[in-house]
């Protein structure tokens, strides 16, 4: 079986030749593997339609080959066909002692939107300034940049061949809280204060976002990725709450999953950190078919054996080894023991992808990643 076939079998809750193995190495492990300053990878100036760069996406595929793992390519997307004369962000790159600061300005008829993103040599980029600073004024400008409807995208994923049979090609769209956190200046507290203090206004923002997001889901599904991932890091119960999830995320997840199923694309939901309460809601109230990373303690609260028992007939489980405490510090022997236990607990009859509980840290020992792959290929044989 190819890596792509192996993962697709698991996503359909069937047995592959062996348990697929796909630690989440994005984005630091592949970047470090190149030995190059990270900003060179991200600021390559090449055309690319995903959330990261063409060079980074190639770097990921090289890392997949290096570790011999099954690839989970989440770096692509569809190019938006912008209306003529629509306001655009213009970038200026400023060198500083830590790396490169990208300053972006978008001039709209209602005024400017600005954002600053810092690119480091040895850390992933970080957005220091986001466009929506003054909630109501900036959101009006933001809508002029985003457009208020009639969105169009190209019909095909131009980077699809990059991963080929080394893994699955995953289209991605953020859930509402991730989207809002991405554009709203300030931290999570600011976002929650918006939800609490500006309920009516935020209901309007959510309605606008839903319209855009469902249009984009339809476009992505028509382009036939292997999976459509709904990115929900900010919906994690380590940060948010079941009540916020039910209000802002569940209606979208239900609709998006339905569109995916109708279009023959696998709906996949990512919620890291504490997620067990949400896993159960998703399994019983949506048509989502794959969920990850079902993080174990101390970062999350999912017991994989219980997850298999309770939701294994509904969801393919991808997960769930802790990254910051375990993968960074464990010996390969300890990794082997844990992987064998996870396979025993969750791999029977298929529907399990051996993976980590979220992104692996930059300095994760390579021996631990190689060990995961080795155990899946040997002990995980069906």
């Amino acid at each position, binding site marked *: 079986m190819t890596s792509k076939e192996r993962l697709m079998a698991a996503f359909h809750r069937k047995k592959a030749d062996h348990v697929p193995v796909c630690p989440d190495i994005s984005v630091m492990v592949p970047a470090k593997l190149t030995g190059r300053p990270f900003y060179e990878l991200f600021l390559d100036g090449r055309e690319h339609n995903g959330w990261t760069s063409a060079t980074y996406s190639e770097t990921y595929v090289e890392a997949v080959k290096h570790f011999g793992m099954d690839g989970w390519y989440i770096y692509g997307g569809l190019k938006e066909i912008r209306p003529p004369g629509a306001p655009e962000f213009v970038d200026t790159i400023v060198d500083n002692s830590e790396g490169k600061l990208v300053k972006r300005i978008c001039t709209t008829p209602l005024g400017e939107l600005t954002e600053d993103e810092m690119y480091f040599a040895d850390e992933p980029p*970080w957005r*220091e300034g986001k466009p929506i600073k003054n909630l109501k004024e900036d959101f009006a400008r933001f809508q002029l940049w985003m457009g208020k409807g009639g969105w169009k995208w190209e019909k095909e994923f131009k980077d699809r061949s990059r991963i080929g049979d080394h893994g699955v090609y995953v289209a991605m769209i953020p859930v509402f809280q991730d989207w809002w956190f991405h554009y709203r200046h300030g*931290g*999570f507290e600011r976002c929650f204060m918006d939800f609490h203090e500006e309920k009516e206004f935020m209901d309007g923002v959510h309605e606008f976002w839903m319209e855009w997001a469902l249009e984009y889901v339809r476009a992505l599904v028509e382009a036939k990725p292997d999976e459509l991932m709904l990115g929900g890091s900010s919906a994690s119960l380590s*940060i948010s*709450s079941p009540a916020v999830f039910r209000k802002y995320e569940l209606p979208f997840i239900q609709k998006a999953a339905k569109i995916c199923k109708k279009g023959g694309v696998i709906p996949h939901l990512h919620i890291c950190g504490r997620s067990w309460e949400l896993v159960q809601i998703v399994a019983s109230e949506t048509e989502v078919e794959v969920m990850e990373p079902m993080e174990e303690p101390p970062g999350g609260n999912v017991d994989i054996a219980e997850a298999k028992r309770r939701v294994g007939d509904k969801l393919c489980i991808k997960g769930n080894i802790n990254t*910051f405490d375990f993968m*960074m*510090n464990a010996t390969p022997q300890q990794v082997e023991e844990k992987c064998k236990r996870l396979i025993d607990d969750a791999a029977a009859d298929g529907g399990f992808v051996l993976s980590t509980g979220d992104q692996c840290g930059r300095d994760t020992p390579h021996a631990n990643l190689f060990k995961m792959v080795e155990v899946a290929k040997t002990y995980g044989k069906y």
Partner: protein
Amino acid sequence: MDLIQEIAANVQEGYPERVKKGVEKALAGGLLPHDILQKGLIAGMNVVAEKFKSGQMFLPEVLNVAGAMKAGMAIVKPLLTKESIKSRGKVIIGTVRGDMHDIGKNLVAIMLEAAGFEVVDLGTDVRTDKFMEAVERENPQIVALSALLTTTMIHMGGVIEALEKKQMRDKIKVIVGGAPISQNYANQIKADGYARDASMAVDLVRRLLNHTAGTA
């Protein structure tokens, strides 16, 4: 339900306007500011802290509660005598370099304040040298470091090393927290303590300061 209990209940429900009105009414009725603070505002927050600790409440709801408590504190605090607001200790808190996450850190700051500690919040993306400047300026008993990213948590160790270099480590306790942090990691970087959540951070600070002469 008496007025103080009503204030505590409105704190728990996260209603800032009701808390504000309740506090004003209580003061007009001759109740002591100290009693309103302790038996109304802080008592309400303590119930919420326990619910949060046991997983019955989540961060967004706790933030609403904190907002309600702060609305009441803003009225009561200026009326307290110097004696009744004597600090139980000073804590410098911040999210480390490269990390803009604030929610957990803010909640720890609010809960520490509610528990009677003086808190100097340095904000997010705080460089090691900024922590050191604040330590020299503020003379705290505790430095509390927060991080939400595996890439930024490494800077926690840098703050501890800087305190060691300045030979201040024996006078200042360092506590750490944030999603990717664990007791193992705290041990690795030689922090004095780790707290899984804001409520536990308050317990930790209380515990550490009880062992620090002259501050409890």
